[in-house]
């Protein structure tokens, strides 16, 4: 068996094991935790362990096999799957926009020190703007903003919010990566009279890959969070975020239902992370495996 296959089997089994472990802890807490939560001087410190707040694992799982609403012939798994798929596509779009902007900005900052000094503080500040405050504004562009005959679709707003969270780690990580090229290598390129562009593509970007991969991982999960929060805070139809708020309203009568959507969102994040993990393996397969001196 190749080391690569062995490693992926190992990783997968560790992942399955950790999921099972979380399930066991959940059920364990239900067994020993206080039914009505733990309070110290009136402040809730322990969650309630009753079936409304924390349904059994098996009731959540079996909920997938039953219809979304009584009398409907659509089972909930297909509804959640469709919602997750919709949000997934939005996240991919947001990630793509964020990655393009992030990498573009980092190249500009690497090229012009002035741009870095002028821009970087604003990028940091941009991330302190609460997404919830920004979401309604950007979503309000949907259907209204019209640029050269192109009407801003509503879904694009959610993707833009995903991009808003995705671009920052990507820009910062790529910038660090581009700056990581050793000075001896830069000197070599300069001895060949290589242009800045040649140095960028033949040296700086390849040297940046080990920094970009983790940055893109953060960016991918940022895109998912941005999209789901945009859906939740604006009620955009079709995605997993909308399902979460809808199902949460039924939490007293049908507590397992909301968890089916929450798991859908988690699966969505995992799919995005898996995306990047595959590119990680592909891009890093010919890099040094162990550091030698």
């Amino acid at each position, binding site marked *: 068996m190749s080391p690569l296959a062995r490693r992926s089997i190992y990783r997968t089994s560790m992942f399955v094991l950790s999921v099972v472990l979380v399930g066991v802890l959940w059920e364990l807490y239900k067994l020993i935790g206080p039914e009505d939560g733990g309070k110290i001087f009136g402040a809730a410190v322990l969650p309630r362990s009753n079936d409304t707040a924390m349904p059994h694992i098996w009731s959540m799982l079996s909920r997938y096999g039953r219809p979304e609403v009584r009398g409907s012939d659509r089972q909930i798994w297909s509804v959640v799957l469709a919602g997750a798929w919709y949000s997934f596509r939005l996240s991919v779009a947001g990630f793509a926009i964020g990655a393009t902007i992030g990498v573009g900005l980092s190249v500009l900052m690497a090229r012009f020190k002035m741009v870095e000094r002028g821009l970087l503080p604003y990028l940091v500040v941009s991330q302190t703007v609460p997404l919830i405050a920004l979401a309604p504004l950007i979503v309000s562009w949907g259907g209204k903003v019209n640029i050269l005959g192109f009407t801003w679709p509503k879904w694009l707003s959610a993707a833009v919010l995903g991009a808003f969270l995705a671009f920052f780690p990507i820009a910062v990580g790529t910038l660090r990566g581009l700056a990581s090229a*050793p000075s*001896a*290598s830069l*000197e*070599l390129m*300069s*001895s*060949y*009279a*290589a242009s800045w562009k*040649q140095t960028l593509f*033949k*040296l700086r970007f*390849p040297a940046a*890959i080990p920094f970009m991969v983790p940055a893109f991982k953060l960016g991918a999960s940022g895109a998912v969070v941005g999209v789901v929060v945009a859906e939740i805070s604006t009620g955009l139809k079709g995605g997993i975020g909308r399902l979460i708020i809808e199902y949460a309203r039924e939490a007293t009568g049908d507590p397992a239902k909301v968890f089916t959507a929450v798991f859908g969102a988690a699966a969505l994040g995992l799919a995005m992370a898996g995306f990047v993990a595959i590119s990680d393996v592909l891009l890093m397969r*010919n*890099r*040094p495996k162990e550091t*030698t001196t």
Partner: protein
Amino acid sequence: MSAVNVQGASKIFNQGTPKQVDALVDVNLTVEPGEFVSLIGPSGCGKSTLLRLIANLLEPTTGEITVNSKTASQSRLDQDYGMAFQQAGLFDWRTVAKNIELPLELKGWDKAKRAARAKEMLELVKLPEFADMYPWQLSGGMQQRIAIARALAAHPPLLLMDEPFGALDEMTREYMQGELLRICSETKTTVVFVTHSIPEAVYLSNRVVVMSPRPGRITEVINVSLGSNRTEDTRGADEFFKGITAVREALRGTHDDHANAGAVRGVEDR
């Protein structure tokens, strides 16, 4: 027309600060086309700095430097020289063959021509079976040979080499010295070569430039009269030993006050 002409060059790092270093002071050096010139001297005497000035990777604080009758910067832009540094400096993400092709890519050679030249260079450095390996899968000495192949790949008229054989074992080192002489005489390449080894300097060079530190300067230039046809037998010739003695004598005067008398710091006697 000289291949390299350094006139009154000085290099002062961090001028006007407490960290000021007079790396080179008033250096004059002329290298004729086809000549092989070695720079030798204790550590820190400015050998690498002088090489970097010629390569236009550093600007001199004062003085003039011309390469092939052009300004040093024009020569760099015209890719008139190949350079091998103290460290191999190969790109981890490129195969060995692709590393050698790098300067050719930057010159705009087409793929087939590049591949053919890379193959030729790999045979020259005796590592043909490593073409598709990655640098980090090779030993340090092998990496250094690849770096030399990369410097030679475009057959530049001028080679600037900074202790290129320092990491090699003695056998490979002597083999590479022979190959370097062969290539340079075949292609009429001019070489400026930094080394710490006296026999290496004498064996390779037409002239050995002896430098001393604090401040870095040229103290003596020794002509080596071994002729142009040097073989392994040359290493046993009387002229060879005479050259070694002359360089050692010259170096004796260069060590600074802190060094132990007799031993020249940083210069190997092998």
